[in-house]
């Protein structure tokens, strides 16, 4: 079993990643660079596995200061929610912490919620 704080954080230009116990990932900045997605996808996979192994009921992903992303990054959030949804018994809830200041968050997470509302929750900080 790993500990979220022990998970290796990938270095992605323009993006800040912070792991906060017990179960929060805070993403700040932007995700726009071509070719960074495999690193991020692997990181999200590791967090996903860690959450299952620790029996977490919720994982928080704070994107409220993630100001802009490309559609490939949005794809990563879709994939993550799909991993949970496709499990026979969804192991935990993915809780996105968002800001209404950034249009991409409103549109992307509304669409994601409409498809996977049983495995994710979207909350706003402002």
């Amino acid at each position, binding site marked *: 079993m790993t500990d979220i704080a022990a998970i290796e954080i990938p270095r992605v230009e323009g993006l800040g990643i912070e792991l906060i116990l017990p179960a929060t990932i805070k993403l700040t900045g932007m995700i726009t660079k071509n070719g960074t997605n495999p690193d991020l996808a692997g990181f999200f996979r590791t967090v996903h596995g860690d959450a299952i192994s620790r029996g977490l009921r919720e994982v928080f992903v704070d994107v409220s200061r993630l100001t*802009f992303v490309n559609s490939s990054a*949005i794809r990563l959030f879709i994939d993550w929610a799909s991993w949970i949804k496709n499990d026979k018994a969804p192991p935990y809830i993915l809780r996105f912490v968002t800001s209404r200041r950034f*249009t*991409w968050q409103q549109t992307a997470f509304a669409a994601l919620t409409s*498809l996977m509302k049983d495995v994710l929750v979207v909350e706003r900080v402002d």
Partner: protein
Amino acid sequence: MSTAPNTSNPLRPMVFMRFRPAWAYIDGIREFGRFFCETTFGTPALAQRACVVIQEALENAVKYSSNSPDSELELVIQSDGDRIEFSVSSLPDAAHIERLRAELAQQRTLDPEQAYVAAFLRASKEPSESARLGLARIRYEGGVELSIHEQEGGRVRVTATGKL
């Protein structure tokens, strides 16, 4: 190679840029587009829409550009006071033009929000395939309609037009 549009009308805010199809340029051009739209039109919301349109349109153009020496990209931003138009001209491989035309035709069968959600659904069901969210995102989040125009020499211009 296409020619630069007429920029002589001072009442028509216009940007024209020509550059090699390189990933490294996209961030800088997107942020200039944000600055230009926010400064010219004074609306942060429009600046965010511009970022989406520019990012996704340029990523698409860079990804599918041919290796020809004539494959430079052109970006134009202009407005008539009521509407704003972003267009990106590129020289893609022929197969991409067909895919682009088919994707846009499929998009037009749905309103922008429906098409956006449908693109999410497709992505969730095809985890090993390319995301193909960009055009739906441009329409919905960018608040624009898309059209494509084939030009001389195999170039294609993708135009996104919406309200200011």
